[in-house]
């Protein structure tokens, strides 16, 4: 089975179009061809809960920005962590904020990881690689 055929899904919840584009490019340049589902605000993210209930397949990992229009990232996280089996999908906070309170709040609600988006594109690509490698390859999810 070639890597190409593994259609694991990554969900990226991010409002900034530049960040969306760069993240997608970073994943592409690393030849990580997982499909990326892009969600542009908190409301849309909450909307996905119903879609998953209706049978859409769950992503292997959710990358979540904190500062989102309409519904805040932490509220999205809170909503996701209430739902079963959605709560077992790892959520990686990918944000610019390195504020202690944000980090603490995110972990308290149940974030699985917290990554500060680097400004440097090289570093950003390395982050993308780590995310892909760790959550898609190394980490074992619930079968």
């Amino acid at each position, binding site marked *: 089975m070639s890597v190409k055929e593994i259609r694991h899904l990554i969900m990226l919840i991010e409002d*900034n179009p*530049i*960040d969306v584009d*760069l993240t997608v*490019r970073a994943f592409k340049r690393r030849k990580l061809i997982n499909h990326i589902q892009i969600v542009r605000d908190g409301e849309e993210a909450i909307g996905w809960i119903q879609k998953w209930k209706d049978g859409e397949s769950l992503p292997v990992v959710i990358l979540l920005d904190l*500062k989102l229009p309409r519904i805040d990232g932490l509220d999205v996280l809170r909503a996701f962590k209430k739902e079963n089996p959605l709560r077992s999908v790892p959520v990686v906070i990918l*944000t*610019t*904020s*390195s*504020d*202690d309170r*944000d980090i603490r709040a995110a972990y308290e609600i149940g974030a699985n990881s917290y990554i500060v*988006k*680097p*400004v*440097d*594109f*090289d570093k*950003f690509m390395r982050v993308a690689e780590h995310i892909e490698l760790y959550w898609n390859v190394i980490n074992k999810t619930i079968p």
Partner: protein
Amino acid sequence: MEVEELKKKFLFDKEEDNEKKLSRSTMDNMLEACIILGYDWRYLYLNDAAVKQCRRPREELQGKVFTEVWPYIENTKVFSLMKDCLGNRTPYSYVNEYEFPDKSIGWFDLRIQPIPEGVFILSVDITTRRKAELKLQESEKRLIHAQYIAKMGDFTLEFETGKVTWSESLCNLLRYKQSDVIDYNRLKSKIIHPDDLERVTKWLNDSVTSGKGTLPTNEYRLICKNKKVIYVRTLGIIQKKDENVTLLFATVLDITKQKLAEIEVKKLNRELEQRVIDRTKQLERMNNELKVFSYSVSHDLKAPLRGIDGYSKLLLEIYSGDLVEEAQLFIRNIRESTIQMNQLIEDLLTYSRLERSVLSMRDIDMQKFIDDMLNLYQNEIKDKNISINIDISNSIITTDQNSLSLALRNIIENAIKFTAKEENAQITIGMSSTKFYDTIFVKDNGIGFNMEYHDKIFDIFQRLHHVEDYPGTGIGLALVAKAMHRLNGRAYAKSEPYNGATFYLEIPKIPVL
């Protein structure tokens, strides 16, 4: 001795001349002045006391006419009484105030009696007594005035019987008549404010039973007869009148004005406290806004920066073949600026985080602490071939590790940076202690600085060098100063241009609370 008696005993028995002589000789020796005036107003008789009272020699009086001896006397009251006595035989008693030619004043208690020979005058010099009386009256008046001015009065209370007397000034103060004030027990509920009555009663009882001689100061409210409430302060003395009766003598001072002012001050204080609370809330709100602001700086400034960095990188990588050398340089400069701006934002965030972080004091093993810190820079130290000297004996500093770490990291980074162009770069890290301070120093043999700027370098955004020579944001030493300030310590530096610099971190031994 009564005049009638005198008359009977000694006088005026015309038939008994010898007896008359005898009675006159009795009068001669009397201390009271005795004068007999005839119908023609001549002095028929004066005893020595009378001569003395008149303050003139006997020759000027004896046998002389009264009205001639005392000019202007005819216009006086005393003369008209004497005249009436002579003519109508009416006796009089009269206190005469007389001004002598030397302007001194004398008072004489006169008995003017008709006698067969004319008129008999018995005069007692009461000047001394009268003067004393006047003096007493004067001082009483002064006391009343003084008490009136001071808005005070006094009272005497027989504790066991309740018999009470108020001074005139106390009566004035409370608008009562002295006749209203007899029985304290009946009066108290009328004059003492109901909210203070119990307290006042207890105070009097306790003071009396304590057996001490003083009535301790107390403040309470009294109700005047016109229903006006005044605040008073009382203090006094306690004396035993006899075995069964205790006397309280006390002053009552009207302190209404002070009390009202005091109440006003308390009210103002409460308002002030409320204002402080309000202002603090406002400040807290502003502080929170500031925290949100720094969060926004972190989030909103970095996102576009990431765009600039990302796309310029992609541009260089994907289209470098299409770009001339100069265009590539431009892009590299753009990327350089991005990195610098990113650092600036990071430093600013550290600076604002430092302001809000909570100090946590703990013992720090300095030797290990510095070794760990230098590990962070081991690559740079190796690359630049810097020789490091550590001169720290086994010592423990009690302080906030985060603050110290931040300060020390920045000055070590500076030392590495400013020795970058030295052939034999050397950095010494050492420590010294006094009774009150531990001082850590970092000494380098780098480019140094002019001491003229020794204070300025700790100000935010102050740079002494071009960024292309020595990169930096101008926040590092401001962070150092701020961190030390939070520890109640200080940071300072000594240097000479091109002769190295030494930075000192002075940390108080008594930890900040």
